[in-house]
């Protein structure tokens, strides 16, 4: 807990603020955090937000309490549920979805994600679970990356395996999709975004009680210089009240 709210609660609030009204958000495995963020955004500044929970294909599900399971039967009372192959179609269509919530075993300076293998793919030091839908990141308007571990092990200069494409590391790289790429990275320590020219990750804000030096030490690459770093605005009383109403089981606050 940082003061009167947990780190997860802060992260959920930060992600919620990143979702804009009318957008369509898609999330995958272990959806508790992005689900909380989407539900919170929808109940505050983004009443026309839509959100799709991974394997269930549900749109705007309102489970009683958050869930960590992307195919939870608790998601079924939703005003719409798409068969998963139809979600896959929309992911590839390129103009249907706005925000893809992503993560990785490794996340690099250009926002590439790796859920497949640390080390050599053929003989990995760490085999990840696999990449599910992350290859569709560049076909989505933009992505929000979140990670529960902010350490040099996770935040690396270059992922060992690109399973969720981020920004091109060089302006020569041809990425002509509609996508804007990753727009925000949310961690337990800070929020980070990307230099609009070099597309390299930079520190945007540190969470209350965290120093810039601590973030630098926890990051395995040199972030791009950017505007002065602020403190992440903490949850408002309204945000926290609404969030806890969505999370009676205390999945985020515990």
């Amino acid at each position, binding site marked *: 807990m940082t003061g009167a709210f947990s780190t997860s609660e802060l992260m959920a609030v930060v992600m919620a603020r990143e979702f804009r009204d*009318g957008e*369509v958000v898609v999330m995958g495995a272990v959806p508790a955090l992005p689900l909380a963020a989407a539900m919170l955004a929808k109940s505050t500044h983004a009443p*026309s937000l*839509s959100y*799709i929970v991974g394997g269930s*294909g549900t*749109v*705007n599900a309102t489970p009683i309490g958050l869930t960590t399971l992307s195919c939870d039967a608790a998601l*079924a*009372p*939703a*005003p*719409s*549920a*798409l*068969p998963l192959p*139809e979600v*896959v*179609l*929309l992911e*590839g*269509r*390129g*103009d*249907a979805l706005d925000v893809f919530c992503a993560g990785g075993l490794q996340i690099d300076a250009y926002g590439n994600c790796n859920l497949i293998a640390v080390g050599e793919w053929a003989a990995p030091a760490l085999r990840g679970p696999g990449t599910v839908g992350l290859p569709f990141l560049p*076909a989505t308007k933009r992505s929000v990356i979140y990670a529960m571990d902010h350490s040099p092990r996770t935040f690396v200069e270059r992922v060992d395996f690109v399973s969720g494409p981020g920004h091109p590391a060089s302006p020569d790289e041809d990425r002509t999709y509609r996508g804007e790429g990753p727009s925000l990275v949310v961690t337990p320590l800070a929020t980070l975004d990307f230099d609009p020219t070099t597309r390299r990750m930079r520190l945007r804000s540190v969470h209350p009680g965290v120093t810039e030096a601590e973030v630098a030490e926890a990051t395995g690459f040199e972030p791009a210089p950017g505007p002065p770093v602020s403190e992440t605005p903490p949850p408002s009383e309204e945000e926290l009240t609404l969030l806890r109403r969505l999370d009676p089981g205390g999945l985020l606050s515990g």
Partner: protein
Amino acid sequence: MPGRFLEAEEAVAEFVPSGATIAVGGMHMTAAPMALVTAMVRSGVRTGTLVTSPSASLQAELPVAAGLVDEIMSPYVGFEDLGLAPRFRKAVESGELRVVEIDEGSLTHALYAGAGGIPFLACPPGVDLTDIPRVSPELFRRVRNPFTGDEGWAIAGLRPDVTLLAAAEADEDGNVALGRFPFTDRLMALAARRLVVQVERTVDSGAMAARAPGDTIPGFLVSAVVVAPGGCLPTSYPGFYDRDEGAIRTYLKAARAPETLEAWLADLTGADPARGAEDS
């Protein structure tokens, strides 16, 4: 952004530009979006390419009869037991209507590809033994299978500018439920750049939750909802009404001669905008 509730003419004016590729849902004489199609005809909107379900009836015949279709892409236009589509037939025979020849399989897969950002796919067996690819060079191209080296036909993804569908219900957020055989209406919805849905009635959001996965279309895909009870007549909407066979026969009889057709069309689309699909 979830769909807005509009009148049929408003929805057509806002989302159905002239000259566009328009897909109309419903199969045979079931669930044809006649309220929307009638509004298109009433508004005089020209269709560049009219794409239909694997089988269409009045939802294709009516805009063709009104002389508002440049080109049609449909695996079947007709009236099952009631016979051929008279104006479609005449328009093709006279050369007024260009046909982009396509079959059910190729259309289905083209919509799947269009919905999924799949640039093209190799056709399954069968169509290669027909004359269809020969007369539709804009749809079918030869491609070499990079896995086997075999040559075959490919079809590209198809993305209608607008799809018009009929559904049973919509809630206040523009989520819609079909409540019937889905036909290819879901793929048409997913592949479209804009989707306009007419519904028999509105319901509370809570009512949608009881629907089976795959029966609903989420509001974020829906540009506009038009509430049009009876709006599929004279075709049927399962659970609401059967087709009006008499009305279809009346049309088929009227379509035999230009003067009677003109009168029938004037009656349907005449100056009085209060007269909707129910009168058809």
